[in-house]
């Protein structure tokens, strides 16, 4: 049984200007110890998917319309608050995309780091502080003894991000959800953090959901990858298959846009057009309006995520029909 299994998750935002279908029928699962990468269009619902699982949606305007998210037998979307508290923040931890909105600006780093320990474990303040200092050192913050007493604004962007990482790992979670955790870091520190995550994974058998735009990071860290577009998963495969034989036109477009694979200074390849308006029901494939292969059928039939080969699924009707 997978550690986490999400089925048909739909999270909509009910706003004055309409209903935004941020997540619209997403299913996936994560095994113990496995690393799942989530990539995709900015605004495609990657973060909202994770907020839904971890219970941090702003409700309202957000509403979970349907779906289940079983973590080790408990449906996180329908369990009691007490059950949720026992899991979230301890067995499932999350690193957020924006460190400043999740760190309390008026609280010293030390207080914020030991808080989850004091809540979830029987531990003295003194010992909690020692563990927090050690954790801060292992994410590469020098002078941790002194700096642990600073406030968030006294840290650089990347250092704040490392504080967030320390905060998430300090309770030794079984599932780590990392939303662009290394985007703000230089590549050497990034390499160090990725090593730390891999090490925790080996030692604790921790599973990881890793959201990133950096396809280089995905290729080094992830076992499997899923690609999201406009609130849906459009392709999922093991990492090698996804990089060597992407099938969905959006995935292919994404891969073609990588700057390091294009000559310096040249106009970069981009996917023409704008993302669809998710406040209107989308008949057919959400990518059709921007897809060079689209036919009339693509805008009429809602595509399903269908396996092409074992473990490789994608939604393009024309790929499924063997036409492209």
């Amino acid at each position, binding site marked *: 049984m997978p550690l986490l299994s999400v089925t048909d998750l739909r999270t909509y935002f009910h706003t004055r200007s309409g209903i935004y279908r941020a997540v619209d029928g997403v299913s996936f699962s994560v095994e113990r110890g496995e690393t799942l990468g989530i990539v995709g269009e900015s605004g495609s619902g990657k973060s909202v998917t994770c907020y839904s699982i971890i219970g941090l949606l702003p409700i309202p305007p957000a509403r979970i319309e349907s779906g289940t998210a079983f973590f080790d037998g408990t449906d996180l979307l329908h369990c009691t608050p007490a059950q949720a508290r026992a899991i979230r923040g301890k067995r499932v931890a999350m690193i957020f995309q924006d460190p400043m909105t999740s760190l309390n600006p008026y609280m010293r780093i030390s207080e914020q780091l030991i808080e989850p320990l004091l809540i979830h474990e029987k531990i003295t303040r003194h010992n909690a502080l020692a563990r927090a200092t050690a954790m801060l050192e292992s994410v590469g913050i020098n002078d941790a003894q002194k700096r642990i007493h600073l406030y968030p604004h006294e840290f650089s962007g990347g250092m704040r991000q490392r504080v967030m990482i320390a905060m998430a790992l300090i309770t030794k979670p079984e599932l780590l959800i990392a939303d662009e955790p290394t985007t703000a870091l230089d590549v050497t520190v990034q390499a160090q953090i990725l090593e730390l995550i891999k090490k925790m994974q080996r030692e604790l058998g921790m599973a990881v959901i890793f959201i990133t735009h950096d396809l280089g990071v995905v290729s080094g860290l992830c076992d499997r990858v899923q690609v999201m577009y406009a609130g849906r998963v459009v392709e999922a495969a093991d990492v090698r298959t996804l990089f060597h034989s992407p099938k969905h036109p959006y995935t292919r477009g994404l891969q073609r*846009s990588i700057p390091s694979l294009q000559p310096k200074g040249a106009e970069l390849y981009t996917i023409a057009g704008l993302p669809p308006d998710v406040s209107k029901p989308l008949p057919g494939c959400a990518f059709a309006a921007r897809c060079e292969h689209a036919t009339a059928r693509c805008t009429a039939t809602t595509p399903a995520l269908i396996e092409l080969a074992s473990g490789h699924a994608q939604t393009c009707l024309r790929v499924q029909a063997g036409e492209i």
Partner: protein
Amino acid sequence: MADPILELRDVRTHFPVTQGFLFKRDLGTVKAVDGVTLTLARGEVLGLVGESGCGKSTLARTIVQLVPTTGGAVILEGKNLTTGSTTEVHDIRRDLQMVFQDPYASLNPRMTVYATLAEPLLVHGVCPVADVPARVAELMRIVGLAPRFMQKYPHEFSGGQRQRIAIARALALEPKIIIADEPVSALDVSIQAQILNLLAQLVRRMNLSLVFIAHDLSVVKHISDRVAVMYLGKIVELGRAADIIERPRHPYTRALVSAIPTPDPDVERTRQRIVLPGDPPSPMNPPVGCAFNPRCPHAKEICKSSVPRLSSFEADREVACVRVEEIANL
């Protein structure tokens, strides 16, 4: 240099670090930027890279005068901003725009996209009031946002969408220089490519100068003419973008370049990285001599005593390493 628009002369920005609220105890000084000298030409793109916490954002904020300089001079078209009057600085703001690293913190949560983009247009009287809505829509289209989002608030957007609002706001005043602090880090590669094309186009068409801060070296290489590499408040290497990334000379740059992840699982899992021993140093307590010496695979006794100066090494390249010649062929 031909036609410099911006000059930094020995710029220093230090922060005091204190503990305690009422009875402050001095813990020391963070020398976030410590002696940076640079020239930016009109129409040039300068990439700025370096370890997280090395002072890139502080340098950016110092250039646009959001933090006071501790020493040195920031000179824009001959005017020294560090000694200028407030009205002068206000006028200069229009020419010098910044895109912040954190799109969450830099947008006013109570202002719609329309209000955010219309405000600078109205304050500086850029266009007739009647044209403001059309201009706002145009700015949104330029950064790839549909104008139908005009009446939405920042929290209703994803990270990448907010970053595009921030870029549109910087473009609103048609500045001469944009200081962009990690403007594309939060974007997917396709939108990233759009923004990079857009910035490159603005540079060409409007002779815009750009300081581009990023961690993704392949992006930096793509867009920049020259690249400056910072380590602990100082520039350690400066040169043409392709030279720096294809043939890095400073040992820190070498480690940095070797850590660039490649978008190919087979290559990425087998390649060699220069792993730096030890942790990044604390800017409160920098190492004596060359700041990089405790982690440098090539450090000798001399590196622990003398502070290397940034000096010419090859054509169009400056390096701050006393052993640069000896290690060039290693």
